[in-house]
């Protein structure tokens, strides 16, 4: 879950890009991992139209403690459990399954903090 930090203005961002989103400096970003950071849910939905093996498909915008931001598919939340402001930690899970080539693809997903009550 590698984002980047601009060395010119110190802004952490995702994804890494050639131009800093904050200060506009070019080619100044260095890789920085987000997977160990805690996050906070900024917005979410529980989508009954989107395809998922286990409806509803729960996803939303997550702000990381150090300043980066990402829209991601959530995991381990029961329907009705996510709220704006929920604290999340990143876990590495199956993102999709390629039925033609039989690949499992993995990516990071926000999950509830373990000691939150359900």
């Amino acid at each position, binding site marked *: 879950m590698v984002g980047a930090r601009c060395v010119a203005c110190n802004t952490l961002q995702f994804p890494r890009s050639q131009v800093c989103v904050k200060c506009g400096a070019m080619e100044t970003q260095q890789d920085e991992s987000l997977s160990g950071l805690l996050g906070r849910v*900024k917005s979410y939905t*529980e989508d009954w139209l989107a395809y998922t093996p286990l409806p*509803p498909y729960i996803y939303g*915008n997550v702000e990381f403690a150090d300043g980066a931001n990402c829209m991601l598919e959530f995991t381990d939340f029961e329907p009705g459990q996510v709220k704006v402001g929920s604290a999340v930690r990143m876990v590495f899970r199956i993102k999709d399954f390629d039925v033609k080539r039989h690949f499992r693809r993995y990516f990071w997903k926000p999950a509830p903090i373990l000691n939150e009550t359900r």
Partner: protein
Amino acid sequence: MAKGIKDKVAIIGMGCSKFGERWDCGPEELILEAFKEALVDANISREEIEMAWLGLFYQEQSAGKSALPLSLALRLPNIPVTRVENLCATGTEALRGAVYAVAAGACDIALAMGVEKLKDTGYGGLPERTKGSFDDLWLPNATAPGAFAQLASAYAAKHKIDMQDLKRAMAHISVKSHANGALNPKAHLQKTITEDDAMNAGMIAYPLGLMDCCGVSDGAACAIVTSVEKAREMGFKDLVTVKAMQLAPSNGFEMSNTGWDGSYLHTTRLAAKRAYAEAGVTHPRQEIHMMEVHDCFSVTELVVMEDLGISPEGGAIKEVLDGVFDRDGEVPCQIDGGLKCFGHPIGASGLRMAYEMYLQLLGRAGPRQLNSPSLGLTHNLGGHPFRNVASVSLFGLYSA
């Protein structure tokens, strides 16, 4: 020093097809339906059109890329035709091209046509599209309702609003749009709905229910434009002119970092400010008489009232429920029924909005006619709240 587009270009003819499930039509039939109306309205022949812009988003499968679909459909006399696309602002972008060509003096008369045949897919909702090879690896497989539903949770949290109150305001918006669309023979949906219908409708993506979502439809709309001087020469008396056309695409601000709180449309705010400056509007709430905004989802219309600077921050719910945007309210919104009743044939919507503003300004909106409007706003939002293209345009009566 450039002064913008205000009062340089007049719309002398417009046409709009019936929107809906047009199983019996291909894009060519829809194009012709809108075109015939516009030709009669402008009182010109097809040969007098010198350049054309075609707005077409998804239906590259049926209509095809490039100038060819429009040139072939209308047997245009090999005039320059440019196909444009800017997500849901595609129709407006086609108009913008035609308007700029005429304002630049590159030609006298230009056509802008927007068309989309979305019902041929055979399923509900929009077709999948790739977001670019890297984005598909990490972004969720979001639907349009799910992406816009994000606005609702963020807005409710930010302004500390109970979700049932937000849902009630969203329901009012859909009820209002259906009441307007019921007066419009060109709309896809022409029946009224009740607040209960909206509140109790099946959940699509929390908190958006079925009645909070616009439908998928087929349709076409077009405009014929010329310079104000040429329009006078041609004998037009009451002129509808373009007062502003502004566009603002996302640049990553909303998503890359924590600068955005998810509860408003950043690009709409920028496009609106620029459009007001271009048109010389200093008090939008007082000066704008009517609006057609991008009600792909009811919650989008709600936040756009604040993004356009019409409602104060956090004030949209109260104003919606007070009827400020109803047909008999202070600033009627979606007077033709909006995307809610027309559906959203993507290439056509921007021009369909301009069509209603045009009819209203000329006093030709029949049972939907407002009392002497002289300035109308159209707004498109293509993409998702967190990454999109916003357009804001203003149309009004020409005053020398």
